[in-house]
């Protein structure tokens, strides 16, 4: 049941990404925007219910655990956190154009989970039987989602030409005054910074909970395992972005580029380490 619902969520997120694109391309029509948001909210609600059902189902199978224990479940959770953070930002900023650049992340995560990972509920091996699992995975993936949103915002910043902003003819029923295709660069710059601060705090909490878990499981809070090291590399890169803003001439474009690069490091921490480098977090072995 839960996997069929999650399969439906894949298509809902695809449609909502397309709707946001139509909304942006066809003069920011308010009605269209509301439909896109409504569809995203529906997808998110289905997604939430499916995760809860999966959790319940694991208890019915007698191997009860939070659905955060393998690549499939983590991708599903990543899709969920990304949509959650996107909806929060849309609610706060009322900028629906951001959906065009963020919802594809949620769609790709869900699609990849549905088509290339086994969706079976598996019991937990002893190393994963810890309360830290929940704290570690939730903080890490909320952080990853914030970084995904920050990189989407950075792409929005970078595709705008240096001079005059991209404009369109204001269509009847348009939501945004002045006919701006994308939010102002200053607004984006501020939002990128804010989401990176959120992501950085959560990534730090994720590294700390991971270290605490390692301390209880293996007797060492840090052992330079590739996953640990790559999360630290990601931490160093985002820390440098947060400091670069205080350097002369490093706001705006350069920070946007750095944010895209740093998200590459997040992706490597998530997938590259699991599939390319050996270590404790390897799903491949």
């Amino acid at each position, binding site marked *: 049941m839960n996997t069929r619902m999650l399969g439906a969520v894949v298509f809902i997120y695809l449609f909502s990404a397309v709707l946001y694109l139509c909304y942006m391309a066809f003069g920011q029509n308010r009605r269209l925007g509301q439909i896109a948001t409504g569809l995203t909210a529906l997808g998110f609600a289905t997604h939430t219910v499916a995760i809860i059902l999966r959790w319940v189902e694991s208890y019915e199978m007698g*191997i009860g655990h939070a659905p955060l224990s393998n690549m499939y479940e983590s991708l599903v959770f990543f899709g969920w956190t990304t949509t959650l953070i996107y909806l929060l930002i849309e609610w706060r900023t009322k900028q629906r154009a951001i959906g065009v650049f963020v919802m594809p992340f949620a769609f790709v995560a869900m699609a990849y989970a549905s088509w290339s990972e086994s969706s079976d509920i*598996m*019991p937990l*091996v*002893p*190393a994963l*039987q*810890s*309360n*830290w699992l929940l*704290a570690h995975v939730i903080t890490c993936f909320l952080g990853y989602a914030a970084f995904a949103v920050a990189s989407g915002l950075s792409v929005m910043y970078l595709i705008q030409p240096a001079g005059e902003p991209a404009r369109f003819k204001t269509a009847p029923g348009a939501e945004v005054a002045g006919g701006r295709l994308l939010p102002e660069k200053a607004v984006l710059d*501020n939002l990128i910074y*804010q989401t990176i*601060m*959120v992501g*950085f*705090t959560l990534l*730090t*909490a994720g590294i*700390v909970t991971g*270290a*605490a*878990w390692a*301390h*209880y*499981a*293996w*007797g*060492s*809070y*840090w052992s*330079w395992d*590739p996953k640990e*090291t*790559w999360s*630290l*590399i990601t931490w*160093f*890169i985002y*820390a*440098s972005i947060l*400091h*670069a803003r*205080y*350097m002369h001439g490093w706001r705006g474009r350069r920070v946007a580029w750095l944010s895209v690069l740093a998200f590459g*490091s997040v992706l490597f921490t998530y997938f590259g*380490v699991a599939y390319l*480098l050996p270590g404790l977090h390897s799903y491949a072995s």
Partner: protein
Amino acid sequence: MSTVAKGQEKSAGGGQAALDFLSSVKLTVVLLIGLAATSIVGTLIPQNEAPEAYIQAYGQAKYELYHSLQITDMYHSWLFVGMLALLITNLLVCSIRRFPMTLKAISPPDYKIDEGFFAKQHEHESFHTKLTPAEAAAKAAPLIRAGFSAKAAPLGLLALVAGLVGVFAGLIISNDQTAVFISVAVCEAVVIGVELLRRARVPLPRVLPGDEGATVVAAEKGHLTRLGFYIVHTSIILVVTGAIMGSFWGVRGSIRIPEGQTLDYFWVRATKQKVQLPFGVRLNKFSVTFYPTGMPKEYKSILSVIDNGKVVETRPVVVNSPLSYKGWRFYQSDYQAMGLNSLSLSVQPRSGGAPSVLDMPGFNRPVPLSGGGTVQVVDFQEDLVDMGPALRLHVEHPGQPSADFWVFDRLRDFDRDRGGNEIFSVQNMGMQYASGLEVSRDPGVWVVWGGCILMVMGFLVAFFMSHRRLWLRAAPKGGKTLVQVAGRTNKNRPGFENEFAALLATLKEELK
């Protein structure tokens, strides 16, 4: 004289330049990128392997190059440690040099402000009122308190912090879910309660006379949040200090204890050194259980600590739940089967009827079956074709050819389709085990945890709380009273703009 003075000036200038360099944010960024880059190299080239392994993978010449550049032990190399040390220096020098500025920024707001002051602030607006300056200020003060000062810290953020602290505290006290829930509830109640009490007691903003017959109201909130970045920097120093303490005074190794035995030493893996423990550890029993799929479910060692010849503690140790005694911690890591010590089979006649249990005395000792004939155990494998422990049975029935087959401890139905007179399965396999335990002692670990908790709390303050100031000046102008309002924040201007607009609307309404 003049040359000496010049020389002094020059050296002072050099010192100044060095200080500027050491406290520059450019250095911070370069060092953070440098640490990231060296760490990447460390994940691409395996660390701390035997020389032979490197020579086989990369060849002699490359190995010697990597070894001399310390790439084979990147995280202890001079380059990595040096950059880390420079980063800490950078952080210290920068924090110390910025302190006077911070001190000035957190000192009380200035009341000696004139009409021109307002236009220079981020948010400012003015309107006229029929009230006298003193009346306007007196009326504005409680409104500013209600709309600005009293909402000093966002309740949602505080609840989040309290929740996080609760989860951490709960997990540290016990790995039990109820303990975590109780801990979160207690933290939430205390933090929210204290905040609500504090809000109820926020004093009225100060009303002071200004220049030209004006009255000035000044309010601020969150001035101490400017210290957020000091909290973060202190926490980083704490984490590094804890890690250094661990590397100097910490020790890590492993032991393998057979069931029933007591050991009072362990081996350091890297150096193969024997370390004496101040007490003994006895393995009473080891057990391993499996899911029906054959995946391991639980490894459990019942350990007793024996100090001065007395058992002082007995508890089960499973993965994720170590034993801790006098600063030493014992972690379940692996196990080894040493042999069999008791064995019984379940035998069910194929024609139907209740299964019977047969105790098996040992290898190659035939036991009579209730339906005639005998069964004996002829072989044992710890792990046969990845299906776990297995026994080879030899069954004889008079007038029939004898049968030899395997039965598995974890696969109780394995013999069902063989087609003999009876269906055999393992009833109980008493294995003799040795448990592998990791042993560690790290006196720096609490310093690291303290630093970690402080760091996350520091981020919450430094990133999400801001220092906001508000000024109101009411002065007589052209027979009326001119009310000027201005606000300033050090972070999150969009959020402050909304707050300022809401407060201004209230003030305009009430001070007509």
